[in-house]
C-alpha cells in the first residue's frame, strides 16, 4: 500500500481536518505537560472505576461525537440547500451521510445513554458503585476504541460510504473495495461488545444492589427504564455481533454469507441488521423516557402518574421491539402475509407509547409546574415526539409505505423521534443531574436561549422534510434539479444552522457555568424526590456514607415532608474497589487489533490479540480486594 492510499488526499477539507487533528493533539499534550497533569489524568480519569467519572467521560465523548455528526449534517444540508449545488462530490456526500448516521446512533446516542445511566442509576438505588466496576471501565474503553477507530477512517484509508445500515451487496468487497467498510465493521464490533457488557452490568446492579426496602415496585422510573433497556441490550447486541462478524468474514476471508455468488443471501444481512437495529432504537429511547418521567414528576411537584402502567408499557415496548424488524423493508417483497404481521405488530407499539404520553400529561395536570431548563426540554419532547410517533404509524401501514419508502418523509420521521426523544432527553438529563455531579447548576438563562434556538431550528429543519418526502424527494441523493423543492430545502438548511447555534450556546453554557457559576453545593437544588438528592453535591466518590432504608417510592420527597432524614444512623467503615489500568490498556490493544484487521495487517492484529489475552489472564490472577474507607475520612469529606 502506498502512502497516498493510506492517507486520504485531494480534498482541502480533509487537509484542514488533518491539520486540526495534529494541532489539537499537540495542544492537549502541551497543556497536560505544562500544567503537570499527566499523573492526574492517569490516576483520576484513565484508571478510574468510579461510575460517575466513567459517566462523565461517556457524556464528554457523546458531546464530541455530536459535534462531529452535526458537522456532517451541516455539510449535507449546505449541499442540498439549493438545486444543482456543487459543494460536495457525490462520493464525499455518500461518505458523509454514512458517518453521520453511524456516529449519531452508535457513538453519540449510545454513549449519551450510558453516560446518563452511569451518572444517575447507582445513585437512585442507593448503591456505592455498579456490580462490576472494572468491567464498567472496560466497557467505556471498548466504546472509546471503537469510536476513535471509526473516526480515524476520515483521514486514514477513507470513510465508509454504504449508509449506516451498510446493506449488502453494496457493502460487499466487490462493490465497496476500500477499507472504509472495514472501519465500520470493526468500529461497531468493538463498541458493541462494550455495550453488551454494560447491559449485563446494569441488570445485575439493579437486581442485586438496591438499598434495603426498595422493592421493584418502589424503584424510580429512570432505573426501571435502565433495567428494561439492559435486557434489550443483552438480547439484541449479540445479533449485531454475529452480523458484523459474518460480513467481516465475507469481506476478508472470502466466505459467502451475503454475497450474490456462492449461494449467499444479501437479504439476510438486512434481516440480521434490523433484528438488532429495531431493538436498538428502543434501547436509546427508553432511558430518555425514564429521564422525562423523573423530570416531569420533580418539576410538577407531583408523584408520577401511573407508575405500574409506565412499567408495563415499557415491558410491552421491549417485547414488541423484537417482532417489528421487517417494517424497515416492506418493499423487499416478502408478501402480504409477512407485511401484514409486521404492520400490525408495529402499530401495536403506539398503544404503550400513547399510555406513557398520557401518563406524563396526567402527571402535569394540576401540578405546580416550574419552567426550568430540564422541564422545557421535557415539555418540548411531548408534542415533537407525538409528531414523530404519528408519522411512524403512517409508515407502519405496509401499502402506504411503498410510497413513503426511502423518501424524506421517513428521514423526517426518525429525526423527530430520535432528536425529539433521545437528544431532548439526554440534554434534559444533563441539565437535571449536572448539579449532583459538580455542585452547581448550569446557567438557566443561557440554557433557555440554547433551548429555543435548538427547538425552533429542529422544527424548521425537519418539518419541511415531511412535505418534501410527500412531494417525492428521495433520501440519500446528493443533488436535485427539481426547483419545486428548493424553498423547503432552503428552509431546512436554515433550520440546521439554527440547531448548530443552539448546540454552541449549550456548549458555551457549560463552559461559562464551569468558570463563573456560583458553587452552591446544594444537596437538593431542584426539590427532588429520589435518593440521589439525599447525598451531598458534588456526590462523594463512595456516594452513600450510610445505605438508607427505603419505605416508599420517592423517599426523599416524603422524608422532607415529614421533616425526617433519609440518610441517618451511625457511620461504619465500608469497602470500595481499587482503580485499575488494565481496562484502558485493553482498550488501546483492542484499537490496535481493530486497526490491524481494517488493513488486513495480521502482524499488527495478532500481537495485539495476544496482548488482550495477557490482560485477561492478569485480571483473572489479580486478587486485589479493594480497600476500606474509614469513618474519619467520611467525616472529613462530609464535614460532620
Amino acid at each position, binding site marked *: 500500500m502506498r502512502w497516498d492510499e493510506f492517507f486520504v488526499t485531494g480534498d482541502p477539507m480533509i487537509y484542514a481536518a488533518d491539520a486540526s487533528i495534529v494541532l489539537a493533539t499537540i495542544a492537549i499534550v502541551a497543556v497536560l505537560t505544562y500544567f503537570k497533569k499527566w499523573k492526574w489524568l492517569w490516576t483520576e480519569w484513565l484508571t478510574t472505576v468510579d461510575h460517575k467519572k466513567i459517566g462523565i467521560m461517556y457524556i464528554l465523548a457523546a458531546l464530541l461525537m455530536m459535534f462531529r455528526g452535526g458537522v456532517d449534517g451541516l455539510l449535507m444540508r449546505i449541499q442540498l440547500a439549493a438545486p444543482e449545488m456543487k459543494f460536495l462530490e457525490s462520493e464525499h456526500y455518500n461518505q458523509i451521510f454514512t458517518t453521520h448516521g453511524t456516529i449519531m446512533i452508535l457513538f453519540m446516542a449510545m454513549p449519551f445513554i450510558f453516560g446518563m445511566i452511569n451518572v444517575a442509576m447507582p445513585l437512585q438505588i442507593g448503591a*456505592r*458503585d455498579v*456490580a*462490576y*466496576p472494572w468491567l464498567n471501565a472496560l466497557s467505556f474503553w471498548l466504546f472509546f476504541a471503537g469510536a476513535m477507530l471509526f473516526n480515524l477512517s476520515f483521514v486514514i484509508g477513507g470513510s465508509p460510504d454504504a449508509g449506516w445500515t451498510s446493506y449488502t451487496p453494496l457493502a460487499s468487497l466487490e462493490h465497496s473495495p476500500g477499507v472504509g467498510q472495514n472501519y465500520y465493521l470493526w468500529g461497531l464490533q468493538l463498541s458493541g461488545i462494550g455495550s*453488551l457488557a454494560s*447491559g*449485563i*452490568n446494569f*441488570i*445485575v446492579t439493579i*437486581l*442485586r*444492589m438496591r438499598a434495603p426496602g426498595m422493592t421493584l415496585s418502589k424503584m424510580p422510573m429512570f432505573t426501571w427504564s435502565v433495567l428494561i433497556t439492559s435486557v434489550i441490550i*443483552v*438480547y439484541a*447486541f*449479540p*445479533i449485531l*455481533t*454475529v*452480523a458484523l*462478524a*459474518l460480513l467481516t*468474514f465475507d469481506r476478508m*476471508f*472470502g*466466505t*459467502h*454469507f451475503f*454475497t450474490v*455468488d*456462492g*449461494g*449467499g*443471501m444479501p437479504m*439476510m444481512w438486512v434481516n*440480521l441488521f434490523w433484528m438488532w437495529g429495531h431493538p436498538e432504537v428502543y434501547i436509546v429511547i427508553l432511558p430518555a423516557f425514564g429521564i422525562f418521567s423523573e423530570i416531569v414528576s420533580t418539576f410538577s411537584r407531583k408523584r408520577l402518574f401511573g407508575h405500574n402502567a409506565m412499567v408495563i408499557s415499557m415491558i410491552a415496548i421491549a417485547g414488541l421491539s423484537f417482532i417489528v424488524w421487517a417494517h424497515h423493508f416492506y418493499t423487499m417483497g416478502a408478501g402480504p402475509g409477512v407485511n401484514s404481521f409486521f404492520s400490525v405488530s408495529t402499530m401495536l407499539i403506539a398503544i404503550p407509547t400513547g399510555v406513557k404520553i398520557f401518563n406524563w400529561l396526567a402527571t402535569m395536570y394540576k401540578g405546580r409546574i416550574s419552567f426550568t431548563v430540564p422541564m422545557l426540554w421535557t415539555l418540548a419532547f411531548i408534542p415533537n415526539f407525538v409528531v414523530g410517533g404519528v408519522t411512524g404509524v403512517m409508515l407502519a401501514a405496509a401499502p402506504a409505505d411503498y410510497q413513503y419508502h426511502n423518501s424524506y418523509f421517513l428521514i423526517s420521521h426518525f429525526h423527530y423521534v430520535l432528536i425529539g426523544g433521545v437528544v431532548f432527553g439526554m440534554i434534559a438529563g444533563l441539565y437535571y443531574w449536572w448539579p449532583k455531579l459538580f455542585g452547581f447548576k448550569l446557567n438557566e438563562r443561557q440554557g433557555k436561549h440554547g433551548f429555543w434556538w435548538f427547538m425552533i431550528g429542529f422544527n424548521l429543519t425537519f418539518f419541511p422534510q415531511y412535505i418534501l418526502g410527500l412531494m417525492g424527494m428521495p433520501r440519500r441523493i446528493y443533488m436535485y434539479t427539481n426547483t419545486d423543492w428548493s424553498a423547503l430545502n432552503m428552509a431546512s438548511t436554515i433550520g440546521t444552522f439554527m440547531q448548530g447555534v443552539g448546540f454552541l450556546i449549550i456548549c458555551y453554557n457549560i463552559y461559562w457555568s464551569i468558570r463563573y457559576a456560583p458553587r452552591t453545593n446544594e444537596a437538593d437544588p431542584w426539590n427532588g424526590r429520589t435518593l440521589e438528592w439525599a447525598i451531598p453535591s458534588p456526590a462523594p466518590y463512595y456516594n452513600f456514607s450510610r445505605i438508607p432504608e427505603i419505605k416508599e417510592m420517592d423517599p426523599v420527597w416524603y422524608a422532607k415532608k415529614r421533616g425526617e432524614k433519609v440518610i441517618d444512623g451511625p457511620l461504619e467503615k465500608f*469497602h*470500595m*474497589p481499587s482503580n485499575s489500568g488494565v481496562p484502558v490498556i485493553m482498550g488501546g490493544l483492542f484499537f490496535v487489533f481493530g486497526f490491524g484487521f481494517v488493513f488486513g495487517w495480521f502482524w499488527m492484529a495478532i500481537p495485539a490479540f495476544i496482548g488482550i*489475552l495477557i490482560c485477561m*489472564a492478569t485480571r*483473572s*490472577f489479580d*486478587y486485589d*480486594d*479493594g480497600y476500606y474507607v474509614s469513618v474519619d475520612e467520611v467525616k472529613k469529606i462530609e464535614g460532620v
Partner: protein
Amino acid sequence: MAAHVDPGYKGPLEYSTEESRMNILGFWIFLGAEFVLFSCLFAMYIILQGSTAGGPTPKELFEFKSMLIQTLLLLTSSFTCGLAIHEMRRGKSKGLAIWLIITLLLGLGFLYMEIEEFLLYVNHEGATWGTSAFLSSFFVLVGTHGAHVTLGSLWMIGIIIQVLQRGLTPRTTRKAFIIGLYWHFLDVMWVFIFTVVYLTGMVV
C-alpha cells in the same frame, strides 16, 4: 462490594459472598446473550445449508466416525466437569483440580479431532469456507463453537493453577463454578450442532 462471607452462612462456598452471587448471576445473563449469538449462527446455517453452489452437500461431506468421537469426548468432559464441582462441594481441592485437568484433556482431545476433521475437508475434499454458502455457515457455526472451547481451555488452565495455588476459597470456588457453567453451556451447544448439523445433514 461485599467480598466477606456473611456470618452464619451455611450454603455452598461459591455462593458465600455477595460478590460471588452477583458474578454467578451476571454469568448466567451472559450465557443468555451467548444463546442469542449461537441462535443467529444456527439460523444462518439452516437457511444456507441447501446453498451448496455446486460444492459438496452435507451428506457427501460429513465423517460419521470423527463426529462420533468428538461427541463422546465432549459429552464425557461435561460429566467429568460435573464431578469436579461435586468434589469441590465435598471440600476436596485436589479432587477438583484432578477432575478439571481430565476435563481439560478431553476438551483438548475434542479440539484435536475437530481440527483434524476441518483439515480433512479442506485438504482432501477441497471444501473450504469459500466454496459455498453452506460451507461458510458450517465452518463458522462449528468453528465458533470450537473457538469457544479453545478459549474455555485457556481459561480452565488459569483456574486450575489458581485452585492449586490457593486451595478452596470463596473466590477460587466461584471461579471454578463459573467455568463449569461455561463448559456445560458449550456442551449443550454441541448437542444442538450434533442434531442440527450432523444428524440432519447425514439423514436428509
